[in-house]
């Protein structure tokens, strides 16, 4: 299963980026192969508007089974994400990616 985190950095110790549309990175963890990869989303900085839908398009290319983030996607991004069969967990802000993963494992994150 592929789990994507919105991340403010590129390591397991980085903080969750609470923002979906303007997240700087996605950290993608495959819990079967234990592979970790990083997807750079920092180009979204240059978008005056429509960051949410631009990022939704990006996540579509990653095709994760689970998305873990902080505040949760905005209205437009949420509409786009509905097209993906993906579980979304929120309220992981103020956690490192590692903590967010543990909390997710223990069923402590709120699902959307």
């Amino acid at each position, binding site marked *: 299963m592929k789990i994507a985190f919105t991340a403010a950095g590129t390591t397991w110790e980085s*903080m969750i*980026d*609470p*923002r*979906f*549309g*303007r997240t700087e990175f996605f950290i993608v963890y495959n819990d079967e192969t234990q592979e970790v990869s990083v997807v750079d989303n920092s180009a979204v*900085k*240059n*978008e*005056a*508007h429509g*960051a949410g839908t631009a990022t939704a398009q990006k996540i579509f290319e990653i095709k994760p089974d689970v998305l873990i983030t*902080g*505040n*949760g996607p*905005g*209205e437009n991004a949420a509409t786009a994400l509905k097209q993906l069969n993906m579980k979304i967990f*929120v*309220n992981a*802000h*103020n956690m*490192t990616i590692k903590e967010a993963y543990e909390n997710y494992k223990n069923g402590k994150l*709120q699902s959307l």
Partner: protein
Amino acid sequence: MSSERINEIVILSGKGGTGKTSIAAAFSVLAGEEAVIADCDVDAANMHLLLKPDFAGSLDFFSGELAVLNQDVCIRCGKCADVCRFNAIPFIENQYTISPLDCEGCGYCEKVCPSFAIVMKERKSGKVYTSTIKTGGIMVHARLDIAAENSGKLVAKVKKDAKDLAKAGNKEYIIVDGSPGIGCPVVSSLSGANYVVLVTEPTMSGLHDLIRVYEVIKRFRIKAGCIINKSDVNEAQSREIKEFLLAEQIDHLADIPYDSAFSSAMIEGKTVVEIQSPRKAQVEEIWKQIKIITNKNNTI
């Protein structure tokens, strides 16, 4: 507390004129060097008048795009003007010219020009500053060019710079003076926040605006508190606001009665906590309360 766990507190009002900036500036003075200040009310930035930043670091800011036409290669076929839905390419003195005030940056003209005479360039829309303010604290703020528009991008940039500085300086708080309205810049002001302080007034439009902006806050699941400013101007409206706060589980932080101390302080270039009046103790008390609430939220 780990240096990365910073409390980001956003002050919002929905509409202008409620005293939001005066209150945000007072919190900034109280927080002193514990906080980095981010002024995201860039449409009508006023915080600098009270916090006296030194405008030490500045950087041009670009937002959106603008069509730029090279007359040297233009063959004056008029295709660009035909497709532009914003009448931004008038034919003046025998040549097609882009009117920057009208151009929406859609890029259609660039796509149809047969001689590649049009390129889309980033549009300069203002400057972002990093300053030291009178308390010794740090502030990130911006100034828009004339007729330029605030955007989610600009707000995100101001907040990101503030966050980086807060991390680097091991600060506990980021205090954000949020954007007005309920559009894209507000969403950007809010996202990533730990706590929102709503400043409202007991008027018919005050409650109406409060409800609208709270919709956005709720969507992002951010805890909020509310200050009713000039609460004594209309007791009945104040009560209605309080009922709304109760129903939505928004912390009712305080009622601040109308007090000329705010404008007296402003005239001296000060915040209300820097002059003597009953408001000083009250605003100090509110800030203390906010610190307690946010620290509790942040340690779960």
